[in-house]
Protein backbone atom coordinates (compact mmCIF):
# COMPACT_ATOMS: atom_id res chain seq x y z
CA UNK A 1 0.00 0.00 0.00
CA UNK A 2 2.79 2.39 0.89
CA UNK A 3 4.11 2.33 -2.68
CA UNK A 4 0.78 3.46 -4.08
CA UNK A 5 0.41 5.94 -1.22
CA UNK A 6 3.70 7.70 -1.92
CA UNK A 7 3.13 7.69 -5.66
CA UNK A 8 -0.32 9.22 -5.28
CA UNK A 9 0.89 11.75 -2.76
CA UNK A 10 3.65 12.80 -5.12
CA UNK A 11 1.10 13.02 -7.92
CA UNK A 12 -1.18 15.23 -5.87
CA UNK A 13 1.55 17.60 -4.90
CA UNK A 14 2.93 17.94 -8.39
CA UNK A 15 -0.41 18.28 -10.12
CA UNK A 16 -1.54 21.61 -11.48
CA UNK A 17 -4.92 21.04 -9.96
CA UNK A 18 -3.43 20.98 -6.51
CA UNK A 19 -1.41 24.13 -7.19
CA UNK A 20 -4.55 26.00 -8.19
CA UNK A 21 -6.40 24.81 -5.10
CA UNK A 22 -3.51 25.69 -2.87
CA UNK A 23 -3.16 29.18 -4.34
CA UNK A 24 -6.90 29.77 -4.08
CA UNK A 25 -7.23 28.60 -0.51
CA UNK A 26 -4.11 30.30 0.75
CA UNK A 27 -5.07 33.59 -0.83
CA UNK A 28 -8.64 33.63 0.40
CA UNK A 29 -7.63 32.23 3.79
CA UNK A 30 -5.05 34.92 4.33
CA UNK A 31 -7.41 37.58 3.11
CA UNK A 32 -10.20 36.43 5.43
CA UNK A 33 -7.85 36.33 8.40
CA UNK A 34 -6.34 39.66 7.58
CA UNK A 35 -9.77 41.28 7.28
CA UNK A 36 -11.03 39.91 10.58
CA UNK A 37 -7.69 40.69 12.23
CA UNK A 38 -7.98 44.30 11.14
CA UNK A 39 -11.56 44.39 12.38
CA UNK A 40 -10.46 43.09 15.77
CA UNK A 41 -7.73 45.70 16.02
CA UNK A 42 -10.04 48.55 15.18
CA UNK A 43 -12.97 47.45 17.23
CA UNK A 44 -11.54 46.02 20.45
CA UNK A 45 -14.73 46.69 22.36
CA UNK A 46 -16.77 44.02 20.65
CA UNK A 47 -13.97 41.52 20.87
CA UNK A 48 -14.17 38.84 23.56
CA UNK A 49 -11.43 39.12 26.11
CA UNK A 50 -10.50 35.46 25.88
CA UNK A 51 -9.77 33.18 22.95
CA UNK A 52 -9.05 35.97 20.53
CA UNK A 53 -7.32 33.57 18.16
CA UNK A 54 -10.39 31.45 17.82
CA UNK A 55 -12.42 34.61 17.31
CA UNK A 56 -10.03 35.43 14.49
CA UNK A 57 -11.04 32.20 12.72
CA UNK A 58 -14.77 32.51 13.25
CA UNK A 59 -15.59 36.19 12.94
CA UNK A 60 -16.40 37.49 9.52
CA UNK A 61 -16.47 41.13 8.64
CA UNK A 62 -19.37 42.53 6.69
CA UNK A 63 -18.06 41.60 3.26
CA UNK A 64 -15.76 38.68 3.97
CA UNK A 65 -16.64 35.24 5.29
CA UNK A 66 -14.81 33.95 8.30
CA UNK A 67 -12.06 31.44 7.70
CA UNK A 68 -14.12 28.65 9.30
CA UNK A 69 -17.13 29.28 7.05
CA UNK A 70 -14.87 29.54 4.10
CA UNK A 71 -13.13 26.23 4.81
CA UNK A 72 -16.51 24.60 5.34
CA UNK A 73 -17.54 25.79 1.92
CA UNK A 74 -14.36 25.00 0.04
CA UNK A 75 -13.46 21.80 1.85
CA UNK A 76 -15.84 19.70 -0.26
CA UNK A 77 -14.38 21.19 -3.38
CA UNK A 78 -10.93 20.07 -2.31
CA UNK A 79 -12.17 16.58 -1.55
CA UNK A 80 -13.99 16.29 -4.85
CA UNK A 81 -11.04 17.65 -6.79
CA UNK A 82 -8.70 15.13 -5.26
CA UNK A 83 -11.03 12.18 -5.67
CA UNK A 84 -13.21 12.47 -8.72
CA UNK A 85 -10.80 10.90 -11.17
CA UNK A 86 -8.92 8.60 -8.85
CA UNK A 87 -10.32 5.41 -10.35
CA UNK A 88 -11.97 6.60 -13.54
CA UNK A 89 -8.78 8.42 -14.49
CA UNK A 90 -6.81 5.20 -14.27
CA UNK A 91 -9.45 3.55 -16.39
CA UNK A 92 -9.28 6.32 -18.96
CA UNK A 93 -5.49 6.20 -19.14
CA UNK A 94 -5.56 2.43 -19.35
CA UNK A 95 -3.22 2.08 -16.41
CA UNK A 96 -5.59 0.30 -14.05
CA UNK A 97 -5.29 -3.13 -15.60
CA UNK A 98 -1.54 -2.77 -15.78
CA UNK A 99 -1.21 -1.80 -12.15
CA UNK A 100 -3.57 -4.54 -11.03
CA UNK A 101 -1.71 -7.16 -13.00
CA UNK A 102 1.25 -6.51 -10.74
CA UNK A 103 1.50 -8.64 -7.62
CA UNK A 104 -0.35 -6.28 -5.28
CA UNK A 105 -3.64 -6.77 -3.51
CA UNK A 106 -6.46 -4.84 -5.04
CA UNK A 107 -7.25 -3.00 -1.86
CA UNK A 108 -3.70 -1.66 -1.68
CA UNK A 109 -4.54 0.51 -4.65
CA UNK A 110 -7.78 1.97 -3.35
CA UNK A 111 -6.47 2.30 0.21
CA UNK A 112 -3.30 3.94 -1.02
CA UNK A 113 -5.28 6.41 -3.08
CA UNK A 114 -7.70 7.23 -0.29
CA UNK A 115 -5.07 7.73 2.38
CA UNK A 116 -2.88 9.74 0.04
CA UNK A 117 -5.89 12.01 -0.52
CA UNK A 118 -6.50 12.30 3.22
CA UNK A 119 -2.84 13.05 3.85
CA UNK A 120 -2.94 15.77 1.20
CA UNK A 121 -5.98 17.31 2.86
CA UNK A 122 -4.37 17.15 6.28
CA UNK A 123 -1.22 18.83 5.02
CA UNK A 124 -3.23 21.48 3.22
CA UNK A 125 -5.44 22.20 6.22
CA UNK A 126 -2.52 22.17 8.62
CA UNK A 127 -0.44 24.57 6.56
CA UNK A 128 -3.28 27.03 6.19
CA UNK A 129 -3.85 27.00 9.91
CA UNK A 130 -0.16 27.56 10.54
CA UNK A 131 -0.16 30.46 8.08
CA UNK A 132 -3.16 31.95 9.80
CA UNK A 133 -1.59 31.57 13.22
CA UNK A 134 1.53 33.28 11.96
CA UNK A 135 -0.47 36.11 10.49
CA UNK A 136 -2.55 36.29 13.65
CA UNK A 137 0.51 36.68 15.84
CA UNK A 138 1.67 39.61 13.72
CA UNK A 139 -1.74 41.21 13.69
CA UNK A 140 -2.68 40.70 17.32
CA UNK A 141 0.73 40.83 18.89
CA UNK A 142 0.47 37.72 21.08
CA UNK A 143 0.57 33.95 20.48
CA UNK A 144 -2.39 31.57 20.97
CA UNK A 145 -2.60 29.74 24.27
CA UNK A 146 -2.51 25.99 24.71
CA UNK A 147 -6.26 25.51 24.77
CA UNK A 148 -6.63 27.48 21.55
CA UNK A 149 -3.99 25.31 19.91
CA UNK A 150 -5.77 22.17 21.05
CA UNK A 151 -9.04 23.42 19.70
CA UNK A 152 -7.41 24.26 16.37
CA UNK A 153 -5.85 20.82 16.24
CA UNK A 154 -9.20 19.15 16.78
CA UNK A 155 -10.71 21.56 14.28
CA UNK A 156 -8.14 20.24 11.79
CA UNK A 157 -9.05 16.64 12.57
CA UNK A 158 -12.77 17.34 12.14
CA UNK A 159 -12.00 19.20 8.94
CA UNK A 160 -10.01 16.26 7.58
CA UNK A 161 -12.91 13.91 8.30
CA UNK A 162 -15.27 16.35 6.65
CA UNK A 163 -13.18 16.69 3.51
CA UNK A 164 -12.51 12.96 3.75
CA UNK A 165 -16.22 12.36 3.33
CA UNK A 166 -16.23 14.28 0.06
CA UNK A 167 -13.09 12.52 -1.05
CA UNK A 168 -14.66 9.13 -0.35
CA UNK A 169 -17.85 10.18 -2.11
CA UNK A 170 -15.97 11.41 -5.16
CA UNK A 171 -13.99 8.17 -5.24
CA UNK A 172 -17.19 6.18 -5.03
CA UNK A 173 -18.61 8.10 -7.97
CA UNK A 174 -15.39 7.74 -9.91
CA UNK A 175 -15.79 4.01 -9.45
CA UNK A 176 -19.48 3.93 -10.35
CA UNK A 177 -19.23 6.15 -13.41
CA UNK A 178 -16.32 5.30 -15.56
CA UNK A 179 -16.42 8.73 -17.15
CA UNK A 180 -14.42 11.26 -15.22
CA UNK A 181 -16.72 14.13 -16.10
CA UNK A 182 -19.80 12.29 -14.89
CA UNK A 183 -18.10 11.49 -11.61
CA UNK A 184 -17.15 15.13 -11.12
CA UNK A 185 -20.64 16.37 -11.93
CA UNK A 186 -22.33 13.83 -9.70
CA UNK A 187 -20.10 14.81 -6.78
CA UNK A 188 -20.81 18.47 -7.43
CA UNK A 189 -24.53 17.74 -7.51
CA UNK A 190 -24.39 16.05 -4.12
CA UNK A 191 -22.33 18.92 -2.76
CA UNK A 192 -24.83 21.54 -3.93
CA UNK A 193 -27.69 19.47 -2.61
CA UNK A 194 -26.06 19.06 0.78
CA UNK A 195 -25.12 22.69 1.18
CA UNK A 196 -28.07 24.51 -0.40
CA UNK A 197 -31.08 22.30 -0.74
CA UNK A 198 -30.88 20.57 2.61
CA UNK A 199 -31.48 23.97 4.24
CA UNK A 200 -34.61 24.53 2.19
CA UNK A 201 -35.86 21.00 2.71
CA UNK A 202 -35.30 21.12 6.46
CA UNK A 203 -37.19 24.40 6.63
CA UNK A 204 -40.01 22.84 4.67
CA UNK A 205 -40.23 19.77 6.87
CA UNK A 206 -40.08 21.89 10.02
CA UNK A 207 -42.89 24.00 8.57
CA UNK A 208 -45.03 20.92 8.08
CA UNK A 209 -44.41 19.51 11.55
CA UNK A 210 -44.80 22.82 13.39
CA UNK A 211 -47.05 24.87 11.10
CA UNK A 212 -47.63 28.16 12.93
CA UNK A 213 -45.29 28.72 15.78
CA UNK A 214 -46.77 31.31 18.13
CA UNK A 215 -45.25 30.51 21.50
CA UNK A 216 -41.53 30.52 22.14
CA UNK A 217 -41.75 26.78 22.84
CA UNK A 218 -43.12 26.11 19.41
CA UNK A 219 -40.52 28.34 17.83
CA UNK A 220 -37.79 26.45 19.60
CA UNK A 221 -39.33 23.16 18.54
CA UNK A 222 -39.44 24.27 14.96
CA UNK A 223 -35.78 25.25 15.09
CA UNK A 224 -35.00 21.87 16.62
CA UNK A 225 -36.75 19.96 13.86
CA UNK A 226 -34.97 22.08 11.31
CA UNK A 227 -31.63 21.29 12.92
CA UNK A 228 -32.28 17.58 13.13
CA UNK A 229 -33.31 17.31 9.49
CA UNK A 230 -30.46 19.37 8.23
CA UNK A 231 -28.01 17.15 10.10
CA UNK A 232 -28.26 14.60 7.33
CA UNK A 233 -25.86 16.93 5.56
CA UNK A 234 -22.20 16.62 6.47
CA UNK A 235 -21.94 20.35 5.89
CA UNK A 236 -24.31 21.00 8.78
CA UNK A 237 -22.46 18.52 10.95
CA UNK A 238 -19.23 20.28 10.18
CA UNK A 239 -20.46 23.81 10.70
CA UNK A 240 -22.18 22.91 13.96
CA UNK A 241 -19.11 21.19 15.33
CA UNK A 242 -16.95 24.10 14.32
CA UNK A 243 -19.29 26.61 15.91
CA UNK A 244 -18.93 24.78 19.23
CA UNK A 245 -15.27 23.93 18.86
CA UNK A 246 -14.04 27.38 17.94
CA UNK A 247 -16.37 29.22 20.27
CA UNK A 248 -15.86 28.03 23.84
CA UNK A 249 -18.78 30.16 25.04
CA UNK A 250 -21.29 28.32 22.86
CA UNK A 251 -23.23 25.56 24.55
CA UNK A 252 -26.36 24.93 22.50
CA UNK A 253 -27.20 24.35 18.87
CA UNK A 254 -29.91 26.63 17.54
CA UNK A 255 -32.37 28.31 19.81
CA UNK A 256 -32.56 28.09 23.59
CA UNK A 257 -35.58 29.15 25.54
CA UNK A 258 -35.29 31.87 28.10
CA UNK A 259 -36.11 29.33 30.79
CA UNK A 260 -33.40 26.98 29.57
CA UNK A 261 -30.81 29.70 29.43
CA UNK A 262 -31.61 30.86 32.94
CA UNK A 263 -28.85 30.37 35.39
CA UNK A 264 -26.21 29.61 32.81
CA UNK A 265 -23.05 31.48 33.50
CA UNK A 266 -21.65 33.14 30.39
CA UNK A 267 -18.26 31.59 30.98
CA UNK A 268 -16.40 29.61 28.33
CA UNK A 269 -16.72 25.84 28.36
CA UNK A 270 -13.80 23.60 29.02
CA UNK A 271 -12.45 21.77 25.97
CA UNK A 272 -13.75 18.43 27.21
CA UNK A 273 -17.24 19.87 27.64
CA UNK A 274 -17.24 21.38 24.18
CA UNK A 275 -16.15 18.05 22.82
CA UNK A 276 -18.97 16.31 24.64
CA UNK A 277 -21.39 18.53 22.80
CA UNK A 278 -20.09 17.69 19.35
CA UNK A 279 -19.11 14.08 19.96
CA UNK A 280 -22.18 12.79 18.05
CA UNK A 281 -21.32 15.04 15.14
CA UNK A 282 -17.76 13.81 14.93
CA UNK A 283 -18.85 10.20 15.20
CA UNK A 284 -21.42 10.66 12.45
CA UNK A 285 -18.92 12.36 10.17
CA UNK A 286 -16.46 9.56 10.75
CA UNK A 287 -19.21 7.03 10.11
CA UNK A 288 -20.18 8.69 6.84
CA UNK A 289 -16.59 8.56 5.64
CA UNK A 290 -16.34 4.90 6.61
CA UNK A 291 -19.60 3.98 4.89
CA UNK A 292 -18.71 5.81 1.68
CA UNK A 293 -15.26 4.32 1.54
CA UNK A 294 -16.58 0.91 2.51
CA UNK A 295 -19.00 0.87 -0.42
CA UNK A 296 -16.24 1.86 -2.84
CA UNK A 297 -14.02 -0.80 -1.37
CA UNK A 298 -16.56 -3.57 -1.85
CA UNK A 299 -17.42 -2.51 -5.40
CA UNK A 300 -13.79 -2.21 -6.34
CA UNK A 301 -12.79 -5.58 -4.94
CA UNK A 302 -15.39 -7.33 -7.06
CA UNK A 303 -15.10 -5.23 -10.19
CA UNK A 304 -13.91 -6.59 -13.48
CA UNK A 305 -10.86 -4.72 -14.63
CA UNK A 306 -11.09 -4.40 -18.38
CA UNK A 307 -8.65 -2.11 -20.07
Amino acid at each position, binding site marked *: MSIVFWKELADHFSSRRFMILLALIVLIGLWATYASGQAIRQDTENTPTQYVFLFLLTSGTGTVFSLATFLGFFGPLVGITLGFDSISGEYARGTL*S*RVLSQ*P*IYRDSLINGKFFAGLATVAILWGSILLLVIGLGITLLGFPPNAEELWRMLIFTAVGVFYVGFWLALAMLFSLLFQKTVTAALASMAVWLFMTLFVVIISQGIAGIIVPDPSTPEQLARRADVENIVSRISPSTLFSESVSILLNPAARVFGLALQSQAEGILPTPLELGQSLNLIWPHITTLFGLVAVCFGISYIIFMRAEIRA
Partner: protein
Amino acid sequence: MSAVVETQNLTKRYHDKLAVNALNLTVQEGEIFGFLGPNGAGKTTTILMLLGLTEATSGRASVCGFDPTRESLEVKRRVGYLPENPGFYEDISATENLLYMARLNRIPDDEARRRTSEVLDQVGLSEDGRRLVREFSRGMKQRLGIAEVLVKKPRAVILDEPTLGIDPDGAIRILELIKGLNRERNLTVMLSSHQLQQVQEICNRVGIIVKGRLIVQGQMDELGRAILKERQWNFLLEVGGGANGLENDLRAIPGVDEIEKRRHGLFLRCTRDVRPEVLSLLARKNIPLLQLRSEDPTLEEIYLKYFREA
Protein backbone atom coordinates in the same frame (compact mmCIF):
# COMPACT_ATOMS: atom_id res chain seq x y z
CA MET B 1 7.60 -29.68 -21.04
CA SER B 2 4.93 -28.71 -18.62
CA ALA B 3 1.83 -26.64 -19.08
CA VAL B 4 2.12 -23.01 -18.04
CA VAL B 5 -1.50 -22.26 -18.73
CA GLU B 6 -4.19 -24.85 -18.49
CA THR B 7 -7.94 -24.36 -18.44
CA GLN B 8 -10.73 -26.85 -17.94
CA ASN B 9 -14.20 -25.93 -19.11
CA LEU B 10 -13.50 -22.31 -18.30
CA THR B 11 -16.73 -20.38 -18.73
CA LYS B 12 -17.71 -16.75 -18.34
CA ARG B 13 -21.29 -15.62 -18.57
CA TYR B 14 -22.40 -11.97 -18.68
CA HIS B 15 -26.09 -11.87 -17.89
CA ASP B 16 -27.52 -14.03 -20.64
CA LYS B 17 -24.53 -13.97 -22.95
CA LEU B 18 -21.85 -16.60 -22.89
CA ALA B 19 -18.58 -14.76 -23.47
CA VAL B 20 -16.37 -17.78 -23.00
CA ASN B 21 -17.85 -21.21 -23.34
CA ALA B 22 -16.22 -24.27 -21.78
CA LEU B 23 -12.72 -23.41 -22.90
CA ASN B 24 -10.02 -26.06 -22.72
CA LEU B 25 -6.70 -24.49 -23.46
CA THR B 26 -3.11 -25.52 -22.87
CA VAL B 27 0.02 -23.45 -23.30
CA GLN B 28 3.26 -25.37 -22.90
CA GLU B 29 6.40 -24.06 -21.30
CA GLY B 30 8.69 -22.26 -23.73
CA GLU B 31 6.32 -21.97 -26.65
CA ILE B 32 4.69 -19.05 -28.40
CA PHE B 33 0.98 -19.67 -28.39
CA GLY B 34 -1.22 -17.63 -30.71
CA PHE B 35 -4.69 -17.08 -29.36
CA LEU B 36 -6.66 -16.11 -32.42
CA GLY B 37 -10.17 -15.03 -33.01
CA PRO B 38 -12.30 -12.23 -34.38
CA ASN B 39 -13.15 -9.20 -32.28
CA GLY B 40 -15.51 -10.03 -29.47
CA ALA B 41 -14.73 -13.74 -29.56
CA GLY B 42 -13.79 -13.81 -25.88
CA LYS B 43 -10.02 -13.51 -26.11
CA THR B 44 -9.65 -10.66 -23.65
CA THR B 45 -12.20 -12.14 -21.26
CA THR B 46 -10.22 -15.36 -21.20
CA ILE B 47 -7.02 -13.48 -20.50
CA LEU B 48 -8.64 -11.51 -17.69
CA MET B 49 -9.77 -14.76 -16.10
CA LEU B 50 -6.26 -16.19 -16.38
CA LEU B 51 -4.94 -13.22 -14.42
CA GLY B 52 -7.67 -13.09 -11.82
CA LEU B 53 -8.85 -9.69 -13.06
CA THR B 54 -12.31 -11.14 -13.42
CA GLU B 55 -13.91 -14.22 -11.95
CA ALA B 56 -14.86 -17.22 -14.02
CA THR B 57 -18.51 -18.27 -13.87
CA SER B 58 -17.51 -21.90 -13.84
CA GLY B 59 -14.64 -24.11 -14.80
CA ARG B 60 -11.07 -24.10 -13.65
CA ALA B 61 -7.86 -22.45 -14.73
CA SER B 62 -4.32 -22.94 -13.65
CA VAL B 63 -1.47 -20.58 -14.46
CA CYS B 64 2.05 -21.65 -13.47
CA GLY B 65 0.34 -24.14 -11.21
CA PHE B 66 -1.75 -21.57 -9.33
CA ASP B 67 -5.44 -20.80 -9.34
CA PRO B 68 -5.78 -17.25 -10.68
CA THR B 69 -8.86 -16.43 -8.60
CA ARG B 70 -7.61 -17.54 -5.24
CA GLU B 71 -3.86 -17.18 -5.65
CA SER B 72 -3.82 -14.25 -8.03
CA LEU B 73 -0.76 -12.74 -6.39
CA GLU B 74 1.31 -15.83 -7.09
CA VAL B 75 0.16 -15.78 -10.69
CA LYS B 76 0.88 -12.07 -11.11
CA ARG B 77 4.34 -12.50 -9.62
CA ARG B 78 5.22 -14.95 -12.40
CA VAL B 79 3.22 -13.72 -15.35
CA GLY B 80 3.56 -10.44 -17.17
CA TYR B 81 0.48 -9.01 -18.80
CA LEU B 82 0.33 -6.40 -21.52
CA PRO B 83 -3.25 -5.23 -22.06
CA GLU B 84 -4.67 -4.09 -25.34
CA ASN B 85 -3.80 -0.38 -25.73
CA PRO B 86 -1.59 -0.24 -22.66
CA GLY B 87 -1.77 3.08 -20.82
CA PHE B 88 0.99 4.81 -18.93
CA TYR B 89 1.27 7.69 -16.52
CA GLU B 90 1.82 10.32 -19.14
CA ASP B 91 3.30 13.03 -16.96
CA ILE B 92 6.30 11.05 -15.86
CA SER B 93 9.14 9.62 -17.91
CA ALA B 94 9.30 6.14 -19.36
CA THR B 95 11.92 5.14 -16.79
CA GLU B 96 9.79 6.37 -13.91
CA ASN B 97 6.83 4.41 -15.22
CA LEU B 98 8.94 1.28 -15.22
CA LEU B 99 10.36 2.02 -11.80
CA TYR B 100 6.88 2.36 -10.34
CA MET B 101 5.93 -1.04 -11.70
CA ALA B 102 9.19 -2.47 -10.37
CA ARG B 103 8.41 -1.03 -6.94
CA LEU B 104 4.96 -2.62 -7.04
CA ASN B 105 6.80 -5.88 -7.67
CA ARG B 106 8.93 -5.22 -4.58
CA ILE B 107 12.14 -5.14 -6.56
CA PRO B 108 14.83 -3.29 -4.58
CA ASP B 109 15.62 0.15 -5.95
CA ASP B 110 19.13 -0.32 -7.33
CA GLU B 111 18.17 -3.64 -8.87
CA ALA B 112 15.12 -1.98 -10.39
CA ARG B 113 17.24 0.75 -11.96
CA ARG B 114 19.59 -1.81 -13.45
CA ARG B 115 16.77 -3.88 -14.87
CA THR B 116 14.94 -0.82 -16.19
CA SER B 117 17.83 0.32 -18.32
CA GLU B 118 18.41 -3.25 -19.40
CA VAL B 119 14.86 -3.80 -20.65
CA LEU B 120 14.66 -0.37 -22.26
CA ASP B 121 17.77 -1.33 -24.16
CA GLN B 122 16.23 -4.62 -25.14
CA VAL B 123 13.14 -3.04 -26.69
CA GLY B 124 15.18 -0.31 -28.35
CA LEU B 125 14.10 2.61 -26.21
CA SER B 126 17.31 3.25 -24.33
CA GLU B 127 17.55 6.71 -25.87
CA ASP B 128 14.04 7.66 -24.83
CA GLY B 129 14.05 6.61 -21.19
CA ARG B 130 14.04 10.15 -19.88
CA ARG B 131 11.31 11.40 -22.16
CA LEU B 132 7.75 11.82 -20.97
CA VAL B 133 5.47 9.04 -22.12
CA ARG B 134 3.11 11.71 -23.46
CA GLU B 135 5.55 12.26 -26.34
CA PHE B 136 5.67 8.59 -27.30
CA SER B 137 4.16 7.21 -30.48
CA ARG B 138 1.86 4.26 -30.36
CA GLY B 139 4.53 1.80 -31.41
CA MET B 140 6.91 3.15 -28.78
CA LYS B 141 4.25 2.79 -26.11
CA GLN B 142 3.71 -0.78 -27.16
CA ARG B 143 7.42 -1.47 -26.85
CA LEU B 144 7.50 0.31 -23.51
CA GLY B 145 4.66 -1.98 -22.45
CA ILE B 146 6.75 -5.00 -23.36
CA ALA B 147 9.69 -3.55 -21.45
CA GLU B 148 7.49 -3.11 -18.41
CA VAL B 149 6.28 -6.68 -18.62
CA LEU B 150 9.91 -7.83 -18.64
CA VAL B 151 10.98 -5.82 -15.60
CA LYS B 152 9.65 -8.43 -13.23
CA LYS B 153 11.53 -11.23 -15.04
CA PRO B 154 8.40 -13.23 -15.72
CA ARG B 155 8.18 -16.92 -16.47
CA ALA B 156 5.44 -16.29 -18.99
CA VAL B 157 3.91 -13.24 -20.64
CA ILE B 158 0.40 -12.73 -21.90
CA LEU B 159 0.13 -10.10 -24.61
CA ASP B 160 -3.29 -8.89 -25.67
CA GLU B 161 -3.28 -7.74 -29.30
CA PRO B 162 0.35 -6.59 -29.26
CA THR B 163 0.27 -5.45 -32.86
CA LEU B 164 -3.06 -3.66 -32.84
CA GLY B 165 -3.01 -0.29 -34.53
CA ILE B 166 0.66 -0.36 -35.38
CA ASP B 167 2.07 0.07 -38.86
CA PRO B 168 3.31 -3.09 -40.59
CA ASP B 169 6.96 -2.27 -40.02
CA GLY B 170 6.42 -1.57 -36.35
CA ALA B 171 4.36 -4.72 -35.99
CA ILE B 172 7.14 -6.80 -37.48
CA ARG B 173 9.64 -5.25 -35.07
CA ILE B 174 7.44 -6.10 -32.14
CA LEU B 175 6.90 -9.65 -33.30
CA GLU B 176 10.62 -10.11 -33.84
CA LEU B 177 11.22 -8.77 -30.38
CA ILE B 178 8.78 -11.29 -28.95
CA LYS B 179 10.37 -14.09 -30.91
CA GLY B 180 13.82 -13.07 -29.71
CA LEU B 181 12.71 -13.00 -26.08
CA ASN B 182 11.18 -16.40 -26.47
CA ARG B 183 14.43 -17.76 -27.84
CA GLU B 184 16.88 -16.03 -25.51
CA ARG B 185 15.06 -16.23 -22.24
CA ASN B 186 12.98 -19.32 -22.96
CA LEU B 187 9.99 -17.12 -22.17
CA THR B 188 6.58 -18.63 -22.62
CA VAL B 189 4.41 -16.28 -24.66
CA MET B 190 0.69 -16.29 -25.12
CA LEU B 191 -0.45 -13.62 -27.52
CA SER B 192 -3.89 -12.84 -28.72
CA SER B 193 -4.61 -11.39 -32.12
CA HIS B 194 -7.21 -11.19 -34.79
CA GLN B 195 -4.61 -10.82 -37.51
CA LEU B 196 -3.58 -14.31 -38.34
CA GLN B 197 -1.24 -13.53 -41.20
CA GLN B 198 0.79 -11.27 -38.96
CA VAL B 199 1.39 -13.66 -36.13
CA GLN B 200 1.39 -17.05 -37.78
CA GLU B 201 5.08 -16.94 -38.50
CA ILE B 202 6.20 -16.63 -34.92
CA CYS B 203 3.67 -18.94 -33.27
CA ASN B 204 4.53 -22.51 -32.47
CA ARG B 205 0.95 -23.36 -31.81
CA VAL B 206 -2.31 -21.56 -32.17
CA GLY B 207 -5.81 -21.85 -30.81
CA ILE B 208 -8.74 -20.36 -32.65
CA ILE B 209 -11.63 -19.07 -30.62
CA VAL B 210 -14.92 -17.98 -32.16
CA LYS B 211 -17.96 -16.90 -30.15
CA GLY B 212 -16.42 -18.07 -26.93
CA ARG B 213 -15.64 -21.58 -28.14
CA LEU B 214 -12.21 -22.91 -28.89
CA ILE B 215 -12.63 -24.42 -32.33
CA VAL B 216 -9.23 -25.88 -32.72
CA GLN B 217 -5.82 -25.81 -31.15
CA GLY B 218 -2.62 -27.34 -32.33
CA GLN B 219 0.55 -26.85 -34.27
CA MET B 220 0.29 -24.80 -37.40
CA ASP B 221 0.76 -27.68 -39.86
CA GLU B 222 -1.50 -30.06 -37.96
CA LEU B 223 -4.19 -27.49 -37.95
CA GLY B 224 -4.76 -27.42 -41.66
CA ARG B 225 -5.00 -31.15 -41.92
CA ALA B 226 -7.25 -31.47 -38.95
CA ILE B 227 -9.72 -28.90 -40.11
CA LEU B 228 -9.80 -29.46 -43.83
CA LYS B 229 -9.95 -33.21 -43.83
CA GLU B 230 -12.78 -33.33 -46.27
CA ARG B 231 -11.46 -30.70 -48.67
CA GLN B 232 -7.80 -31.40 -48.88
CA TRP B 233 -7.34 -31.16 -52.59
CA ASN B 234 -6.96 -27.66 -53.90
CA PHE B 235 -5.51 -26.81 -57.27
CA LEU B 236 -4.74 -23.71 -59.20
CA LEU B 237 -5.26 -24.15 -62.90
CA GLU B 238 -4.07 -21.67 -65.47
CA VAL B 239 -4.70 -22.17 -69.14
CA GLY B 240 -3.79 -20.22 -72.25
CA GLY B 241 -6.19 -18.79 -74.78
CA GLY B 242 -9.93 -18.54 -74.47
CA ALA B 243 -11.31 -21.03 -72.06
CA ASN B 244 -14.96 -20.75 -72.94
CA GLY B 245 -17.10 -23.37 -71.31
CA LEU B 246 -14.15 -24.80 -69.49
CA GLU B 247 -15.71 -24.12 -66.14
CA ASN B 248 -18.74 -26.21 -66.91
CA ASP B 249 -16.61 -29.06 -68.21
CA LEU B 250 -14.52 -28.95 -65.07
CA ARG B 251 -17.59 -28.96 -62.90
CA ALA B 252 -18.71 -32.15 -64.63
CA ILE B 253 -15.64 -33.99 -63.32
CA PRO B 254 -16.68 -36.01 -60.25
CA GLY B 255 -14.88 -34.75 -57.15
CA VAL B 256 -14.73 -31.07 -58.12
CA ASP B 257 -16.54 -29.23 -55.43
CA GLU B 258 -16.12 -25.57 -56.07
CA ILE B 259 -14.59 -23.39 -58.72
CA GLU B 260 -13.43 -19.93 -57.92
CA LYS B 261 -12.13 -17.42 -60.44
CA ARG B 262 -8.73 -16.02 -59.54
CA ARG B 263 -6.71 -13.39 -61.29
CA HIS B 264 -4.54 -16.03 -62.89
CA GLY B 265 -6.80 -18.90 -63.70
CA LEU B 266 -9.20 -20.97 -61.70
CA PHE B 267 -9.05 -22.25 -58.16
CA LEU B 268 -10.50 -25.73 -57.75
CA ARG B 269 -11.59 -27.20 -54.46
CA CYS B 270 -11.90 -30.94 -54.80
CA THR B 271 -12.63 -33.94 -52.66
CA ARG B 272 -10.03 -36.08 -54.38
CA ASP B 273 -7.08 -35.83 -56.72
CA VAL B 274 -8.63 -34.80 -60.04
CA ARG B 275 -5.42 -33.92 -61.89
CA PRO B 276 -5.52 -36.86 -64.39
CA GLU B 277 -9.06 -36.00 -65.40
CA VAL B 278 -8.26 -32.31 -65.76
CA LEU B 279 -5.24 -33.00 -67.91
CA SER B 280 -7.06 -35.35 -70.20
CA LEU B 281 -9.90 -32.84 -70.48
CA LEU B 282 -7.50 -30.12 -71.56
CA ALA B 283 -5.81 -32.45 -74.02
CA ARG B 284 -9.15 -33.38 -75.50
CA LYS B 285 -10.18 -29.76 -75.90
CA ASN B 286 -6.76 -28.70 -77.09
CA ILE B 287 -6.36 -26.02 -74.51
CA PRO B 288 -2.74 -25.14 -73.70
CA LEU B 289 -1.90 -25.74 -70.05
CA LEU B 290 0.15 -23.02 -68.39
CA GLN B 291 0.16 -24.37 -64.87
CA LEU B 292 -1.62 -26.82 -62.64
CA ARG B 293 -0.46 -26.38 -59.10
CA SER B 294 -1.52 -28.13 -55.95
CA GLU B 295 -2.32 -25.52 -53.29
CA ASP B 296 -2.33 -26.54 -49.67
CA PRO B 297 -4.87 -24.67 -47.68
CA THR B 298 -3.22 -21.86 -45.77
CA LEU B 299 -4.13 -21.22 -42.23
CA GLU B 300 -5.57 -17.98 -43.49
CA GLU B 301 -8.17 -19.90 -45.42
CA ILE B 302 -8.98 -22.11 -42.48
CA TYR B 303 -9.31 -19.08 -40.34
CA LEU B 304 -11.56 -17.24 -42.76
CA LYS B 305 -13.66 -20.29 -43.18
CA TYR B 306 -14.33 -20.42 -39.49
CA PHE B 307 -14.94 -16.73 -39.28
CA ARG B 308 -17.58 -16.99 -41.94
CA GLU B 309 -19.23 -19.98 -40.43
CA ALA B 310 -19.32 -18.40 -37.02
